[in-house]
């Protein structure tokens, strides 16, 4: 009787401890937890930003092949020089027609991609400028009032002075929409 009881409690105790041990595994925020059948979770194909041992540095994301152009992007022929800047200024025209919708889209894009430096009204007083973290860019209603569309496009694409290039993160169409909004800020 006694041994039988002791056996039972030993069993129960070990089961309880085992269960407790199991339950205590998933609370570490540094651990992603457990997966049931990971082959259904992990993509066999290579996804964006993932690792591929076949490529240099193991990167899946790669530079475009030389001489190719990504979809929705264009061949921009003006070189990143002063001459290219001037030429773009005189030759390039905004291919997108101005409309209410375009202006609205341009404003949304401007607020997302430009306003933290240039300020919502383009006066060079964006949030990071106000915080003193970044030097102020020129104002669209003052120094850049007469800046032609082509020069703006050239500057967004390649960057200018302290401004970095934004050609990779904004499609040509988006750049021209932003320029419509900039014209509005210039008071044109």
């Amino acid at each position, binding site marked *: 009787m006694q041994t039988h009881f002791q056996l039972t409690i030993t069993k129960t*105790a070990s089961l*309880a401890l085992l269960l407790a041990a199991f339950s205590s595994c998933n*609370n570490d925020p540094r651990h992603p937890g457990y997966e049931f059948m990971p082959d259904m979770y992990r993509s066999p194909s290579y996804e964006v930003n993932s690792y591929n041992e076949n490529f240099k540095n193991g990167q899946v994301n790669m530079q475009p092949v030389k001489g190719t152009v990504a979809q929705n992007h264009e061949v921009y022929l003006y070189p990143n020089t002063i001459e290219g800047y001037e030429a773009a200024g005189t030759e390039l025209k905004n291919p997108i027609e101005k409309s209410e919708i375009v202006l609205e889209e341009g404003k949304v894009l401007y607020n997302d991609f430009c306003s933290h430096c240039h300020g919502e009204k383009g006066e060079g007083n964006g949030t990071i400028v106000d915080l003193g973290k970044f*030097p102020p860019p020129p104002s669209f209603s003052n120094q850049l009032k007469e800046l032609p569309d082509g020069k703006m496009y050239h500057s967004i694409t390649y960057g200018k002075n302290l401004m970095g290039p*934004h050609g990779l993160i904004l499609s040509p169409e988006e750049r021209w929409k932003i320029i419509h909004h900039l014209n509005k800020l210039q008071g044109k």
Partner: protein
Amino acid sequence: MILDKNKKDNNYMKELVKCFLSHGKINVVKPVLFAALCLISAVTFSQEGEKLFKQNCASCHALTDKKMVGPGLKGITEKRSEEWLLKWTKNSAEFISSGDADAKAIFEEFNKIPMPPFALSDDEIKAIFSYVKSPDQKTAQAATGNAAATVTTAVNEPTPETTGGMNLTSIIILIVVGLMLILALIVRANANKIIQNQTGGVVASGGILANNKKIFAVLFIVLALFGLKGLWDTLFNIGVAQGYQPVQPIKFSHKVHVAQNKISCNYCHTGARNGKVAGIPPASTCMNCHKYVSEGPLTGTVEIAKIYKALDYNTETQTYGNNPQPIEWVRVHNLPDHAYFNHAQHVSVGKVECQTCHGPIQEMDEAKQFSPLTMGWCVECHRTTEVKMEGNSYYTKLHDKLRNKYKGQPITVDKMGGLDCSKCHY
């Protein structure tokens, strides 16, 4: 400024002499007024310089000796003559081609990036350099980005929840059970003593366990139930990484970038607007700001240097090397491969805020998975979220049809097939 002030001082002296001569005694009011005017004009002159500097120069030149696009301007007024500075500022290209050795050397040093000509008057340029010579301490700091520490509110040190192992409730329950056990044993021992005294030393034989059968039975049942609950939870959490907060290679803080600097989510996660994946920004996006901002109040300086290292960027020469190494960020959110999710569909079409799924990401120093990302969670949202139909003329016919079908009822995502299996699983 000095020239100008001297000129005004001369005028003031003349005025003084004139007053003295004409009246035989000094008219106090006039010169004092004039002096005040001089002072105001000097102050506005300097303010004018600051304004002009910020508008025209600050995007390439720092007030310290820090190299940006062009050289830092600290001490420039001692280094170069006023005439030199005027010529350079008005049209540097012309000045260089005129054969000035200093001008040419600077042009060569800064990778032959020409400074554009400025149509400013002599007085305006002088105002700028008077500001450059003695900028107010606070503005000087701000303009070089070193003021980040004083201007921004202190960044919270990352505080990950490291309860490790068992959670708090389990620990409390274990302690309570342990105390009960000890208490029970003490009571039992006392009871044994009383029995011993009463029966004259005859005690039921056996170990602690056998003598306390009921207590131990209850204890182990409680423990087993508790364990079962734990097992249940564990099983239900398989494949759910809610709260996952991996250690990242760079201590990037969403709080600093989003809550303080007010940079839009879309600026870095460009894929969210028009792609399946929101995406980790390329290091070139970081460099749009961090080419200039190379220091931070707490860990910034070390962490930003990691971007430079990844890009093989030399801060001295401001050039990129040819040995870049990828930054190996740890993926936080991973939807199972058998479920399809598209960011653009939700962000651009559905107009769902980032925070709906990612929680208060703008308050997180360290990013973590806020939502469970389970199917139940997806379905719940599809059942309750109303479809935004305004301003979408392309689907007018379809929307009218839906309105007619569900008269008066809110049209949620599930009413237009948002719960179909094949919407997400194919």
